[in-house]
């Protein structure tokens, strides 16, 4: 290999050596084009960050460029309003996530590992719901949660989130439960493990990677959800972040700085989450491709 390379190099006449081959030119062009595309793609975020530091006078004169001094007080001003919504979102997302994971790991476990009458029927009954889009259920769902007196409560978000989230989760978990080696269960049963112990000590640890993927997928969707929570919750006390920011938008049409600061603050938690879960995030986005 080394020899043939050396031979090839020695055979090259100076005229054959070009300073940059067309191939590397192409690569440079691709890099430049990709960075331009990325810049355009993230331009709204860059714009929001620049606008978030403006006083209303600065916005009036130079709306879309960086202006000095930076008004950091915009951030404290909007944080004072939205921190409460953020906590509500953390609570709603947290409760929904725990609920979704609990019901879907239990169901996924017995569907994937046991035979019992009606198993396939129940499984297909659940999976068929993947074909029901949110637009069909939104209006009747609101009627339902009004009957349950869940309007203006977190439960009006949590129950629909769990019922919507469990379907795809069960679909994924069943497959992973089926993939766990039988030997693990045989060994546990030889030691006299109960179904709970099998679930808790063997099944759950074995499917941990896919639980992470499911969790990341749902957290992103619920954290960023706007329309359903804005229908269900009108009391600011219980409002989650996106409808909270939406209300904040209505109140701050003239004062863009704090508004944009609110948008930036609202976007940060998921970015921080991403820093810790980038692998799960990429896998989650991949698997989300066949979720409707």
């Amino acid at each position, binding site marked *: 290999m080394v020899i043939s390379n050396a031979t090839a190099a020695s055979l090259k006449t100076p005229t054959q050596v070009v300073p940059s081959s067309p191939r590397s030119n192409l690569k440079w062009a691709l890099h430049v084009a990709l960075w331009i595309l990325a810049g355009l793609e993230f331009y709204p975020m860059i714009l929001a960050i620049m606008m978030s530091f403006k006083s209303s006078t600065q916005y009036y004169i130079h709306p879309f460029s960086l202006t000095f001094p930076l008004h950091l007080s915009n951030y404290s001003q909007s944080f004072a309003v939205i921190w409460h919504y953020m906590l509500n979102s953390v609570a709603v997302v947290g409760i929904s996530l725990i609920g979704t994971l609990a019901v879907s790991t239990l169901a996924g476990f017995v569907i994937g590992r046991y035979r019992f009458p009606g198993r396939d029927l129940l499984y297909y009954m659940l999976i068929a719901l993947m074909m029901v*889009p949110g637009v069909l259920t939104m209006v009747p769902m609101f009627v339902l949660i009004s009957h349950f007196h869940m309007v203006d409560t977190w439960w009006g978000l949590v129950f629909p989130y769990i019922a919507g989230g469990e379907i795809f989760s069960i679909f994924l978990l069943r497959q992973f439960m089926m993939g766990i080696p039988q030997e693990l269960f045989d060994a546990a049963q030889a030691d006299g493990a109960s179904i709970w112990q099998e679930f808790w000590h063997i099944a759950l640890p074995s499917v941990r990677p896919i639980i992470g993927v499911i969790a990341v997928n749902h957290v992103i969707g619920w954290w960023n959800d706007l329309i359903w929570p804005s229908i269900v919750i009108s009391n600011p006390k219980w409002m989650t972040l996106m409808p909270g920011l939406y209300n904040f938008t209505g109140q701050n049409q003239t004062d863009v700085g704090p508004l944009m600061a609110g948008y930036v603050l609202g*976007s940060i938690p*998921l970015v921080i989450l991403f820093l810790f879960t980038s692998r799960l995030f990429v896998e989650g986005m991949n698997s989300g491709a066949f979720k409707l």
Partner: protein
Amino acid sequence: MAMTRSASPRPKPRRLRRQPLWLIYGFMFPAVALALIFDYYPALSGLYLSMTNTLEIGITSQFIGFSNYVSLFTNPIFLDSLWHMAVLAVAGVIIGTVVPFTVAEMIFHLGSQNWRYTYRIVFLLKMLIPGMVVVEVWGYIMGVNGVLDQVVRFLGLPGGNISWLIDQHTALAAIIFIGFPWVAGIGILIYYAGLVGIDPEILDAASVDGSRGLHRIWHVDVPLVSGQVKLIVILSAIGSFQGYFAQFLLTQGGPGWATQVPGYFMYLNAFKYGEMGMASAIGVFLFVLILSLTIINMKFIRSSQDYQAQ
């Protein structure tokens, strides 16, 4: 067939020790109960609601058969909204199919694995940003004297100094333009996985035949990722039929009803006009539309799983 299968030396799946049935059904119960109450009941009651003259919750209503559907399809606003939905869907499908493929090809043609990974992560990051924030900022970009106006003026093109989203003639196009250059999303991942999955021998054979550059992309790559193309066409169409984020945040279906779409019309009927029955009928209509696409999509679900790659 059955004979050969049983004769094959595949190990028999061993059964788990028997567990009491009530325990197993107990494991299933929460998921099934939630699905029945919060998925099946709303879906079925939506079908029923769409055939009643329900106005607001708690007011008694009557069964009126298909009257809501008849009034919908004679309502000029709804008919226009169907047309807008079709325009947005065609644009969404073209954009959603072509742009991610182009970018996936660009990323694929970089030699370095690290760079390939970096770019995929960079474009995925955008998906973390709340859609509401992105759309609201686009509202500023397309406002009077917004960034778009300044670009138009800088390029010396006609038509500056307008609020693109409020002008009757540009509002629908402006909604399509939101998110330019439309790169971020799972489309890149799907196409990239497809390109990575192409057998290197095919690419070698193509280059021996002198097929390179755009010629190779068109005659070799495109046919080989046709499965991914179909999947993305369906997913983009379904997304366009359901979506009304820009209407909700920026145009409220206006000016007039120039950007009205069925999804947002449903929202308005249910929560602003007090026409729950009518809203449910729109929901059912969209469901049937999406279901027919989903059934087509089912053919590709297996393949879409095959196309997943890290």
